[in-house]
C-alpha cells in the first residue's frame, strides 16, 4: 500500500574540494552494504518464489508440456494458437466486463461504507471490523458458503425470493445471473478493503478545510462533491488501479461458484489458464495465457507507479 508522503533526500555530507568523492564513497559504501544485507532475505524469497517461476513460465510458454513426461520446444506456436482460440477471446471479454462492473461498484460501496463509518456512533469499531471480515476470509471458503446460498433448488436466497412472491432465479443455469452472482460475491469480499483505505484518506482531510467550506455554504451533498471527492482523488485512483489488477486475477470465487460455466459465460482468463493447464494437461498453453495476463497487469502497474511517482515529486 502506498502512503501519501513526500520523500526528501538525505542531506549530502559536507564537501571539501578534492576529497569529495572519497568521503562520499566510504560512507555510501557502508550504507549500501548495510542496505543489501537488510534486503537480502526479502530478495531471496522474491527470487525463489517470484522471479524464478516467472522466468520458468516464460520458458514453459514456448513448450508443449502435459505436466509430466516429455517437454517439446515449439517456439511461439502457443501464442499463435491463443490468437485463434475463440474461448480465449470470450474469456478476455468476460474479464473486461467483470472488471468494468466490479471496480465502480466496489469503489462506490467502499466509499459509502467509509463515509457512514467515519462519524462517531456506538459500536463503530465493531461495524468496521464486520465490514472487513469478508476480506480476510479465504476466497474458497466464501465461494463454498455462497454456493449453498445461491443454489437454485435448495438455496436460501431462492427460497426467500419465492416466499415474497418473486420468481426463483436460475443462479447457475443462466449465464447472466451466474455472472451477477460472482460480481455480488466479489463485491462482498472487497468492500472492507476499500472502506479501510478511504477511512484513512478521509481522516487525512484537515477539519479546517471543512470549516472554511461551511462558511462558504458547502454543506451536505455540496460538501461531498466540492471538497471531499476532489481531495480523495489520489486514493480513488489508487483503488481503481488496485481493483483492476485484482479483477484481472479473479479465480477462486469463480472456480468454486461456477467452474466457468454455464458454457463459457463466467470463464475468466486465470480460470481458463487453470483449466487448460491442469484439466486439459496443456501446461505450455496455460503458461502462454499467464504471460499475456502478466503483460496486461504490468501495464496497469506501471501506470499507477508513474502516477504516484509524479505526484510525490510534484
Amino acid at each position, binding site marked *: 500500500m502506498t502512503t501519501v508522503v513526500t520523500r526528501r533526500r538525505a542531506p549530502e555530507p559536507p564537501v571539501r574540494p578534492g576529497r569529495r568523492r572519497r568521503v562520499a564513497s566510504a560512507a555510501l559504501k557502508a550504507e549500501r552494504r548495510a542496505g543489501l544485507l537488510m534486503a537480502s532475505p526479502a530478495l531471496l524469497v522474491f527470487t525463489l518464489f517470484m522471479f524464478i517461476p516467472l522466468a520458468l513460465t516464460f520458458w514453459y510458454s514456448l513448450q508443449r508440456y502435459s*505436466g*509430466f513426461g516429455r517437454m517439446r520446444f515449439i517456439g511461439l506456436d502457443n501464442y499463435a494458437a491463443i490468437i485463434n482460440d475463440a474461448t480465449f477471446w470470450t474469456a478476455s471479454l468476460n474479464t473486461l466486463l467483470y472488471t468494468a462492473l466490479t471496480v465502480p461498484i466496489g469503489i462506490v460501496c467502499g466509499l459509502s461504507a467509509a463515509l457512514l463509518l467515519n462519524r462517531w456512533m456506538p459500536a463503530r469499531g465493531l461495524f468496521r471490523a464486520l465490514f472487513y471480515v469478508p476480506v480476510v476470509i479465504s476466497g474458497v471458503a466464501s465461494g463454498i458458503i455462497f454456493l449453498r446460498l445461491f443454489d437454485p*433448488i435448495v438455496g436460501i436466497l431462492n427460497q426467500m425470493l419465492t416466499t415474497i412472491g418473486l420468481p426463483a432465479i*436460475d443462479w*447457475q443455469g443462466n449465464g447472466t445471473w451466474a455472472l451477477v452472482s460472482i460480481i455480488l460475491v466479489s463485491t462482498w469480499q472487497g468492500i472492507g478493503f476499500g472502506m479501510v483505505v478511504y477511512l484513512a484518506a478521509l481522516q487525512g482531510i484537515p477539519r479546517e478545510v471543512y470549516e472554511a467550506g461551511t462558511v462558504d455554504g458547502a454543506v451536505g451533498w455540496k460538501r461531498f462533491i466540492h471538497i471531499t471527492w476532489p481531495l480523495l482523488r489520489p486514493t480513488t485512483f489508487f483503488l481503481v488501479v488496485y481493483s483492476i489488477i485484482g479483477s484481472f486475477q479473479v479465480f477462486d470465487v469463480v472456480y468454486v461458484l461456477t467452474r466457468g460455466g*454455464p*458454457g463459457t459465460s463466467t470463464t475468466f482468463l486465470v480460470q481458463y489458464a487453470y483449466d487448460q493447464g*491442469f484439466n*486439459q494437461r496443456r501446461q505450455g498453453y496455460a503458461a502462454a495465457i499467464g504471460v499475456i495476463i502478466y503483460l496486461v497487469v504490468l501495464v496497469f502497474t506501471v501506470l499507477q507507479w508513474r502516477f504516484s511517482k509524479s505526484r510525490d515529486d510534484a
Partner: protein
Amino acid sequence: MSQLDRRTFLLSTGLIGATAALAACSGGSETPTSTGGAPAVSTGKLSGTVTLTTWGSDQEVAAFKKIAADFTAARGAQVKIEVLPYDQIRTVVDRRLQANQAPDLFRVSYTDVTGYAANGVLADLSDHIDSSFGQQFFPGLWAAMQYDGAPIGVPHHTDTSALVYNKAHFAKAGITSVPDSLESAWTWEELVGVLGKLKTANPGVSPFAFNYQLFGAYRWFNTLFQAGGTVLDPSMKNVTLDTEQAKKALTWTQSLYTQGLHAPSVLVKRPTYPDEIFPTQKISMIQAGDFLVPSLDGAIAKKFEWGVTYLPHDKASATDLGGNAVVVTEGSPNKDAAIEFAKFLVTKENMQYFCEKTTVLPVRNDLADAKLAFDVKPDLMPVFQKQATTMPEALVKTSTLPSFPGINQALVDNMDQFLSNPSATVDSVVGGLTTAIQKALQV
C-alpha cells in the same frame, strides 16, 4: 438368464476391445520400463508401506481398508488408503506425478488410463504376472489395460447407469407401473409422458436430471447412442455428430430443459450432482450409476421409497461404460509390494467382497454368472446388471481411446450454452463439439 446374456455379450466385445487397444498403441515415445533384474515376487513376505490414493463413498473406502488390512496380515507390507474428493483426484495425482511424489497406486477410471500410460508414468506389470493372469478378466476391459503391448494396471470393477425414481412421487402422479424388463423399457415419447405427469402432480419439484456432470459428461453419449448416433466413425478418426441422429439426441435433451422437465440448474459444467439432490425430494427421477446405491440409501434412509428401472430407448438401448481400474506408478519406491497389492485387490474373493459391499459390478469371468449378495438394496442390482449388457461396442471403443479425456472435456465446454439457452441452435453446438473433439483426437 440375464448373466448368461451379459457374459456372452462382454466376451464378444473382446475382439473389439483388442482392436481398440491396438488403435490406442499409437507409438508412445516412452515405453514403460520393467522392474530391474529382480525375479517376480508372488509369494512370501513383503516389507515397507505402500499408499493407494483413491476417491470413494464411505462403503468403498471401508471395503478398501478391509482388503488392505487382509493384505498386511497375509503379506506383511502396510497399505495406507488415502482418500481424496472425486473432482480433485485427477489434478492432485497429476501434480504429485509432476513433483515426483506420486502415490504407489491410484484408482483411475477406464477412460483416463491411457492418458497416464501415454506419458510413461504407469508401471509395467509383466514381471509380476504370468500369461494366464489377464485371461481371468473380461477381454474388453483387460485390453483397455494394455499400452504398447504391456499391461499397466488391473481392472477392478465396472459400473453403469439406470433410472432411479421416487416411488412416492410416482404414486402421486398416478403412475402405477414401471418397466420391469429391458424389452419393455420406455421409449423417449413414453418417458416424456411420464415426466409430464410427474411435473403436474408434484409442483415445485423437477421431474428429471441426467448424471452427465464434469468427468461424467460422456454419459450424455447414452442419449446419443439411444437415438442411433455415434461419436466417431469406425476408424475412430472422424467425428460423426453432424448427423440426423445426433441432432435429434441434442434437440431432445434440450427440449427436456425448455419444457421444464429437467432440473434447470443441473448442467454439465458445474459440480451439481443429481444424486445429491434426489434425497431432498426436489427431483423425482435421476439417471444414476449403481455405485451410488449405498450413498443414496444412506441419505434417504426411511424418508421415502425408491426404485430403479431401465433407461429409455429410441432406436436402440444404450448405457455408459463406467468403472475403475487400479494402477501402479512407475516412480513408486516400493513397486513390488504395490503390484502385489494390486493383484490382491482383484482376486476372486476380494473382488466379490468389494462388489457386494459397494454395489458395483465385477469384471472377472468367474464372477460373471455368480449370484452376488449385495449389501445394500440387492433387489435393485439386477436392473443394473441387465442394463450393463446394452453398452454399445462403439461406445466402449470410444471411451477407451487415449484422447477420451479431451472428448469428455469437449462436452463440458459446449453443452451448457446449448442446454440452458432455448434460442441456441443445434448447428452451433454440433459445430462446437465437432471442432473440439477433432482437436482432442489430434493431441
